[in-house]
């Protein structure tokens, strides 16, 4: 096996191959739970946890699984981990669990997870798979949180509402309110707001990419190097 560029794995996961913004995977939870920052963050972290565990196990067993049962085995592993995570959340983050509801079991069907298992973990060593899982997961979480934050902000003029669900009672005070008279553009919180928000985020990412592409083209016409901003 040749060398693995960890930096590349990390930048891919967080940015270049961001599962939500580039691959457009896992959109169902992405749309459904991001009506507040805390919800987004919660589901993002749960997804990351599952992703990490599944990537690690798939990578560990990658040499022993026959081709014809590869997918069923992956699905089995992922489903087990999701169930475990669901039970844990039910036990320790009860209210958040109630809010995220069906979307926790639905992590099973998040294409990101089976996608990474199939495309990365089943072909790469354990360490690299772990790094990949964390960066992909954090990239996904970042988009969920960002989308949640902007929708919460526009929709009801607050940030970190319900933080105690995730961080315990001390976090109750974290909630920020913009302006008591803010009328709240409800649309942002309702489902259409999710589509518009995601669209805007994707556009923003493309804009940034293009800006840097242009900058790089202007600066260095010589060798095509790797993108440098992480």
């Amino acid at each position, binding site marked *: 096996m040749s060398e693995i560029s960890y930096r590349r794995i990390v930048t891919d996961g967080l940015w270049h191959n961001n599962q939500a913004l580039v691959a457009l995977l896992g959109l169902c939870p992405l749309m459904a739970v991001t009506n507040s920052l805390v919800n987004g963050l919660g589901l993002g972290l749960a997804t990351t946890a599952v992703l990490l565990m599944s990537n690690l196990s798939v990578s560990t067993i990658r040499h022993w699984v026959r081709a014809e049962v590869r997918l069923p085995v992956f699905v089995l592993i992922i489903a087990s981990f999701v169930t475990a995570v669901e039970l844990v959340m039910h036990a320790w983050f009860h209210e958040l669990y109630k809010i995220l509801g069906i979307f926790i079991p639905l992590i099973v069907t998040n294409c990101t997870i089976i996608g990474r298992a199939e495309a990365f973990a089943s072909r790469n060593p354990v360490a690299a798979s772990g790094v990949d899982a964390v960066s992909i997961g954090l990239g996904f979480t970042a988009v969920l949180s960002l989308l949640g934050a902007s929708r919460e902000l526009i929709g009801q003029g607050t940030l970190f509402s319900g933080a105690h669900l995730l961080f315990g009672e001390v976090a109750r005070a974290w909630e920020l309110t913009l302006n008591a008279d803010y*009328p709240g*553009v409800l*649309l942002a919180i309702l489902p259409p707001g999710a589509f518009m928000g995601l669209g805007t985020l994707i556009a923003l990412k493309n804009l940034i990419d293009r800006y840097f592409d242009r900058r790089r083209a202007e600066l260095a016409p010589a060798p095509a190097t790797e993108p440098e901003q992480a």
Partner: protein
Amino acid sequence: MEFPVASSPHLQGDNDIQRVMGQVLLALLPGVAALWWYFGWGVIINLGLAIFTAVFWEWVVMRLRGRDPRPVIADLSGILTACLLAIALPPTLPWWQTMMGTAFAIVVAKQLFGGLGYNPFNPAMAGYALLLVSFPADMTRWLEPSVVSGHSLGLSEAWNAIFSGVAPAAGGWDALTGATPLDHMRTELSREHLIGEIRQSAVWGDFGGRGWEWVANWFLVGGLFLVWRKVISWRIPASMLVALALIAGIFWVIDPDIHPSPAFHLFSGAAIFGAFFIATDPVTASTTPRGQLIYGALIGVLVFVIRTWGGYPDAVAFSVLLMNMAAPTIDYYTQPRVFGDQEKQDE
């Protein structure tokens, strides 16, 4: 001798987009006049605000896209969108909501998709839906028609109401505003009152609410003008209204105590206005002849369904937006039989 060349035909009819849009604007006049008569100057201020916002944003977006804004503004489509939206808004809506809705209609619903001709959704209704969903309280607070409240909102009163939220002097908001006839009907029905009792109230006219039904009539005049001028096809308005009347009629026959008459459905809310001016927006509607019939009829049915069982009192905006999504599919499956196509010749 050399000549410039171009593809045939070398003749061009005298129709153009500006003319189409201009005729629709013209056809709006009677309805707008009626609105002004019953609801006062707020209607006019809204129109002004919306047109101003629409032109401003078209200009900005076209500049951002690096194109000449003038022909785009001159084709009147943006102004028409603004007018259609403004007509649908309550006449005392805070100014910033009107501007926000118009900006959304122009920037997001129209220009982000590529401008006129490319928008999958009716921009005016997209703007309306944004406002209704985001500010349902303001969006459902309509003035009582002047024939009911006995008070017509003057220019300065309307101005103050819109720009500083000051209630008109005569009795404040509660005295002047009320539920629209549709809302009223829905509310009373939910209290298990019967239609007969409900219709005792002074707000009711012959078909729908007093005043309201006349607004609808004047829009009908404008709409018929458009059909006569062949600016719009008769198919969509006719099928929509017939479908609405039919389904309302069926329920009404089953139990006239809890289902209002078809006439009530036709002459209340935005049914007439929507049938002639909203559903017929060519860009977002179905274009095949059979498709138009289906498209219109489904809007009519949806209007009834949403009015009767939905979460908001009126339904034209949502029905149209929903059917906008279905229009391409409808078109695909209702392609007319091509001349000489033998497989379909039996039809």
